[in-house]
């Protein structure tokens, strides 16, 4: 039987020792990097802020300003339009109802957000699906056709799918 002498055995153990040390080191580095590179998801808050902002913009002082509910909404409410179209990451939809009648229904371009938000609500893991927030409010509306003020319901749905990141300044495209 081949025998290893004590010196040779110690040399073999040293190699094994450094291998174990290297493994521990890799484990510590990986763990720390994973912990500190974790993403803080602000999409739900961003969608909530957007829905509030649009709601207060179109229903100022409790009265609906229906003229804003069009493509003028971006200028009127101070929103950057490019983020809501093409390769953008934001979405909103405004619905104004008088009972069952839909008086106004206006949305931005990325209409797939609505379905994607429903999907992300029903799933435990849906990291790359957008997050949405909805606000419903009753406001006054002057109906010119009958010359009277009535109460209508505004529903504002807003969605965000922005992740943020590093070195975005080099990216010249929106969203």
């Amino acid at each position: 039987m081949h025998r290893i002498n004590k010196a040779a055995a110690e040399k073999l153990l040293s190699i094994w020792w450094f291998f174990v040390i290297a493994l521990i080191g890799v484990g510590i580095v990986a763990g720390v990097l994973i912990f500190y590179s974790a993403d803080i998801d602000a999409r739900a808050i961003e969608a909530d802020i957007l829905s509030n902002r649009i709601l207060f913009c179109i229903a100022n002082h409790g009265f609906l300003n229906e003229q804003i509910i069009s493509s003028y909404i971006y200028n009127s409410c101070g929103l950057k339009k490019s983020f809501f179209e093409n390769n953008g990451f934001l979405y909103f939809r405004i619905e104004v109802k008088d009972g069952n009648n839909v008086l106004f229904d206006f949305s931005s371009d990325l209409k797939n957000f609505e379905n994607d938000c429903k999907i992300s609500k029903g799933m435990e893991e849906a990291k790359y699906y957008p997050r949405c927030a909805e606000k419903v409010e009753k406001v006054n509306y002057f109906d010119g056709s009958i010359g009277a003020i009535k109460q209508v319901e505004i529903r504002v749905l807003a969605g965000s799918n922005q992740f943020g990141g590093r070195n975005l300044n080099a990216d010249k495209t929106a969203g």
Partner: protein
Amino acid sequence: MNKRGDTIVLETVIFIALNLVFGAVMTVFILNSSYGALIYEQNYAKEIALLLDEAKPGMTITLDMQEAVLIAQKYEFAGQKVSSSDALSKIVSLNKDLNLVTVSLSGRGGGYSYRYYSNYDVTLDSRGIVLQIKVEDKNA
């Protein structure tokens, strides 16, 4: 000491030295990571962007960034340490064309960026550890 003794001592010294080098490298790495620059960059970038999203024209927002300044002072920006009086101008930057807020606490890697959708005119100013954000209407 005989030749065998020399070899044993040399091997032991090399073994201990390599262990010390490994320990030093791990300590430096963990200390650097524990400053939390990566996580604070993301936190502050998103906080500032969301504040801008919520702000209305005529608002002035002040944000205490003491933690960010303390972390940034542990690093070097373009080969120089930052002082508490000029730290914020180096830490926080705004790209008005892309509507991008960038926070860089370690002076390398470009920092973390987050977009704000508000189309108002935004200016940043710093007062020591306090960041002042002014929002005005572009048409005003």
